[in-house]
């Protein structure tokens, strides 16, 4: 219950639980400043001589890291742009030019998301192989965009729904064409909603770990696959794993912290605000 007086008992319990939940990440950060040897042999020793930037240097020295990073950026931003380009007109149609079939179309769109990716892995893999899309940035951009498109359409719809229909109608009576209606009226009014949708799409695409692991190899692999490569036993690698992990999750973690409110709204399609 949200009384105005601060509740110190609640704070103490919350703080302990929050520390427990965040502990794996805090530990990862601490280990990233050790050497691989010390991360495994002396993990609890935090004396002054233990701290080093060696692991970060070694990750940066490995040229491949920047290739993975670039692939992550291309996949996340490319798929977001593509999905928005497809979703904006679709969401406009569903909100402002609805037909009798609207509810059916929307459920169909969502149902494509409910179809498990694994059900289409084999054909997608073979088709990609034929079209030479395997292990390419374009292939990943297309697949990740398709995976997020249903959620993006639904999310945009939930924002467009809240725009007063009267304004759009007034524009129509004034003789605005469809492009004018969208670019001069809808986009400016829905800009914050579109921005949160784009952010959510970037977060989902950055963390996507099914298609990025199965459709990429040496050329197009993003950070998800880079980190997965640490799962093969290669001796001491914990500090480097930690450093690479910190670098890979930091941007999305910061974005996530900054826009919690918008994320909740987006992930619940406007049902929770």
């Amino acid at each position, binding site marked *: 219950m*949200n009384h105005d007086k601060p509740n110190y008992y609640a*704070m103490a319990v919350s703080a302990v639980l929050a520390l427990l939940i965040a502990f794996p990440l805090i530990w990862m950060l601490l280990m990233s400043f050790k050497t691989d040897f010390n991360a495994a042999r002396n993990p609890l020793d935090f004396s002054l001589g233990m701290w080093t930037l060696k692991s970060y240097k070694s990750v940066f020295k490995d040229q491949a890291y920047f290739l993975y990073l670039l692939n992550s950026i291309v996949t996340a931003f490319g798929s977001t742009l593509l999905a928005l380009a497809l979703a904006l*007109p679709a969401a406009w149609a569903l909100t402002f030019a609805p037909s009798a079939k609207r509810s059916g179309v929307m459920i169909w769109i969502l149902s494509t998301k409910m179809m498990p990716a694994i059900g289409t892995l084999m054909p997608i893999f073979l088709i990609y192989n034929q079209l030479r899309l395997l292990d390419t940035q374009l292939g990943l951009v297309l697949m990740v965009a398709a995976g997020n498109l249903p959620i993006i359409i639904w999310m945009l719809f939930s924002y467009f729904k809240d725009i007063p229909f009267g304004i759009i109608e007034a524009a129509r009576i004034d003789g605005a064409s469809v492009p004018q209606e969208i670019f001069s009226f809808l986009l400016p009014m829905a800009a914050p909603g579109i921005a949160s949708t784009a952010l959510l799409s970037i*977060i989902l695409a950055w963390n996507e770990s099914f298609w990025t692991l*199965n459709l990429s190899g040496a050329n197009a692999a993003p950070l998800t696959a880079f*980190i997965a490569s640490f799962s093969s036993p290669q001796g001491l690698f*914990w500090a480097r794993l930690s450093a690479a992990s910190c670098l890979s999750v930091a941007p999305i973690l910061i974005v996530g912290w900054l826009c919690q409110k918008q994320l909740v709204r987006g992930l619940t399609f406007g049902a929770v605000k």
Partner: protein
Amino acid sequence: MTLNSDSNSTEAMLAKQGFWMLTPAVVFLAIFSIVPLLFTIVFSLLRYRLLIPGVPKFCGLQNFIRLFADSQFIESVGHTAEIVLIVIAITVVGGFLLASLLNHEMPAKRLIRMMVISPFFIIPTVGALIWKNLLLDPASGVFAILFKHFGQTPIDTFAVMPMAMIIVIVCWQWLPFATLILLTSLQSLDMEQMEAASLDGAKSMDNLRYIILPHLMRPITIVVLMELLYLLAIFAEILVTTAGGPGSATTNLTYYIYSKALLEFNVGTASAAGLLAVVLANVVSAVMAKNIKRSVGL
């Protein structure tokens, strides 16, 4: 009359424009879902193995018959259900308790919330590998060191109870999600209604039952739906920690199909199992469909 026919033709034009604006997205989605699904259906009826030379041959329902005779397949369906049900139960109940706690006014509120929701934003392969190595490694993971410190012998948790470890990792990823959604929903609760109820002598259990839980039904439905979508398809966490093992102890349906598809290149069997996964997901979502429609106000 003129006005009426005019608005009719405007409406017809609008419907036409709507159709064309919707088409690119629908076609794109169809290419990446319906078209491959049709291929999956055809493949599932073929004897088709990439590692064995020869033309794919029609074999009727043999792939399905062989699947149902394969105890690993049956087991993998059970493992999938186990992960989905346990994780949803833990994260929804835990998320509700945690959200109720965080809903109190307290110092350092923002910092505490930031820490609680962080795991949700972490790349799945990162979270899984940090748990497996830095925390749970039986030789020098942090838990092993604590165990040794208190004179206990550390357990190789991934060998003794691999499935429990997968579930722990997945709960760690999804508890923040449930907490965040339910907390946001709690904050929009009408406090005056609760205070009025208290003045009328309502006990806190009554408040919980008649005001708080009904208010949370919608967000809980959505949390369950979103988790279902993702938990049915858990993959990366298993790939980087146990690779489905030891034996097939942590092989869920997704991992089973992956191993048939990209490790054995058995297109026929993988497609048959893939098709069953699609059917399973459709059954689940058909059950949920009514609730979803109501929850998002369609």
